[in-house]
């Protein structure tokens, strides 16, 4: 059996910090699982710790933390991706995977045999095990050289998903992604507001599905793969 691996990140990088909404209102995020030395230990389901560091660095280049606001690192995008790959999606449980496998026209989309788990392993090999230690400009160059690959296209899509999906999936930590774009979450009703606020930004404070429904959701990735 595989040894249980953890991703260790400084708590300050993921939640537990003062963030700002688009309306520039401070919003405190609670951090969980913070160890005594101030680090966050997140159990990994699919990646090794080394693989997780490589993917986390690549996601950070795709959606960087900078003067416009927080990015993939703060949102915990790598944790989101780890859970997706460990679940049925990662194993292609919901894709047609019978052969024969043939090359086809671009209009037919992804036709290769590799599932997302295999694609990530290939992609990590191509990025190199020391990718996370490279300077930022070299990381960017490396990713630019891989832009056309299926791996990169998945990684880009997953980074956006990890930024803005409900936190029950492991990303969007502390609703940091929804604060960044002013998305209020799955609110039960806008009946009194849908035809108001014309031309003016209206940004109710974000809330997660669990906060709104007062019970935990059942993310698909928790289904047995």
């Amino acid at each position, binding site marked *: 059996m595989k040894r249980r691996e953890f991703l260790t990140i400084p708590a300050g990088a993921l939640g537990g910090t003062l963030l700002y909404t688009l309306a520039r209102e401070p919003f405190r995020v609670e951090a969980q699982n913070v160890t005594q030395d101030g680090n966050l230990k997140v159990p990994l389901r699919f990646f090794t710790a080394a693989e997780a560091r490589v993917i986390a660095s690549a996601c950070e*280049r*795709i*959606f*960087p933390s*900078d003067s*416009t*606001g927080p*990015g993939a690192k703060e949102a915990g995008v790598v944790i989101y991706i780890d859970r997706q790959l460990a679940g049925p*999606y990662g194993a292609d*449980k*919901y*894709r*047609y*995977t019978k052969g*024969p496998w*043939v090359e086809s*026209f*671009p*209009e*037919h*989309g*992804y*036709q290769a045999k590799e599932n997302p788990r295999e694609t990530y392993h290939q992609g990590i090999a191509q990025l190199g095990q020391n990718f996370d230690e490279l300077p930022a400009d070299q990381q*960017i160059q490396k*990713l630019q050289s891989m832009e056309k690959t299926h791996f990169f296209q998945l990684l*880009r899509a997953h*980074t*956006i*998903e990890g*930024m*803005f*999906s*409900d936190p*029950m999936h492991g990303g969007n930590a502390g609703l940091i992604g*929804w604060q*960044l*774009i*002013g*998305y*209020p979450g*799955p609110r*039960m*009703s*806008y*009946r009194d*507001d*849908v*035809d108001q*606020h*014309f*031309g*003016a*930004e*209206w940004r109710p404070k974000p809330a997660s*599905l669990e906060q709104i*429904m007062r019970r935990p*959701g*059942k*993310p*698909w990735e928790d289904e047995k793969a």
Partner: protein
Amino acid sequence: MTNLKPVDVAIVGGGWTGLAFAKELVTRTSLNVLALERGAPRDLASYAMDMDELDYNIRLRMMQNIAEETVTHRHSPRDPAVPVRQYGSFHPGTGVGGAGEHWTGMCFRFLPSVFNLRTHLTEKHGAARLPADLAVRDWGVTYDQLEPHYWYAEQMMGVSGKAGNLRGKLIDGGNIFESPRMHEYPTPPLKHSYASHLFEEATRKLGYHPYPTPAANLSQNYTNPDGVTRAACAYCGYCSRFGCMVGAKSQPTNTLLPVLRKHKSFQLRTGSWVRRIVHENGRATGVQFTDAAGEEFFQPAETVILASFTLNNNRLLYLSKIGTPYDPATGKGSLGRNLTHQVEGGIRIFFDKPLNAFMGAGSLGRRISDFDGDNGLTGDDGLLRYGMLSLNGNGDLPIGAFGALPPGASKSNWGAEWKAASLQWRDRVAQLNMYGEHMAYRQNYIDLDPTYTDKFGDPLLRFTLDWTEHEHKQRDFAYNLATKIAPVMGAKIDPTRPSKAKYNVINYQSTHIQGGVTMGPSPDVSVVNPYLQHWDVSNLWVIGASSFPQTASGNPTLTVLAATYWAADAMINKYLKNPGKLA
């Protein structure tokens, strides 16, 4: 194979058509009716916990498991067909309620000319001016015959809208180009959004006639003639690809099931995958199905109603060897003809103000039908039929809406520059959507794939389908129309003109795959007669958009339901009294 106790009527499919037909039978006759649904039962209480964009809008958790069955596609017989491995340009539903659970709720009546399109076009242009490969046909049923059934379906769902043509009287604010209606809509229009208001003002200013999109999302609390009460829409934005958490969106589970549950003569069996219609000597004797545990059953029935999605209606007839497969080389045969996929497309427009577009409802919005059918078209440039243009506000969700940028706003589609531009344009992008009639052509059809199989080893369906010059002209027309409207809305239009790309199975188009089991007045080119009874097997009825010889501009569900009620009336009032061929 276990033989089960015979039933009067076995229905294949527990979605809109199967349950609507069942409800007519059990409330109006003493027949015992069994509906077989391959998917799972539904728990309405679960829908509130499903307000999750990732699992439902992106991973498509409500759709058929494509790992078990898909279709293959090729652009022409010269190309090899390959499987659609992931969704996709369309999203077949599964489970009780079928695609009627995850649909958007747009409820259009088709124009009268859609039902006699071959005759209409021939009279307008002369046969010689019509393209040689055009396969459009008359349905064998007219708008006037369907009108009472449209009204019955609208009342069942409580459709929200505003009449524009009430018994011939044109009414400002409704769709004055619509087919004449005998009644006002059951409920008034939905509220609408900022962008939709801008569209309405702009199109009115330009002399067009904007109207509210007719919606199966209730604008107010409503009790239908069956006594089923549902709540008004909350504009939560989780609509298409979700089940409705308050039951405001009409779904088979919140309109028909509450009635059916009260009848002991109705049974719904889930997890039951019908694999063959069994028949001998021109009569269906029942259906063969496999349950979730893999056990096989034979269900004998006096009458079989095939009421699943377009794909499965076609496939079960092929697999059961009922009817004559269409051969495009000779033009002979009927099964699989006239495959169409409503022509949809979005044109992005960009604002310098926030739209608060996260609020919305599936069918919220305004549209224009000034060029629907062939209104305002001469046909001189080869454009025979167009359709509608709309602004929909079904609720922008955060993953899907992120990164919509005007061309040139960022060199890359990732990294710091892209992130900054995406944040700057966030909530400032809307779409003008076209809805075009898709003409049927001789070369677009459905048959069985010779190579790929489903989880049981049965052949998949194969689509041979590509766009023609006519669909490119329709998209061009929509774009030209949009370039007039966008600036009046205070928006900039995406300068990228529609491409003349081939049909692709990747980008979502709509789930409005139609045809293959077409209806018509004569058995040489149609599979079912105008009452949706199979020409060759008179105790087999095939219900759904599979029966439409070509698509209209509007989404098909309301017409699917009207045709279901029309067929159910024919069965109850004529066939059951004197079983045999109705045409």
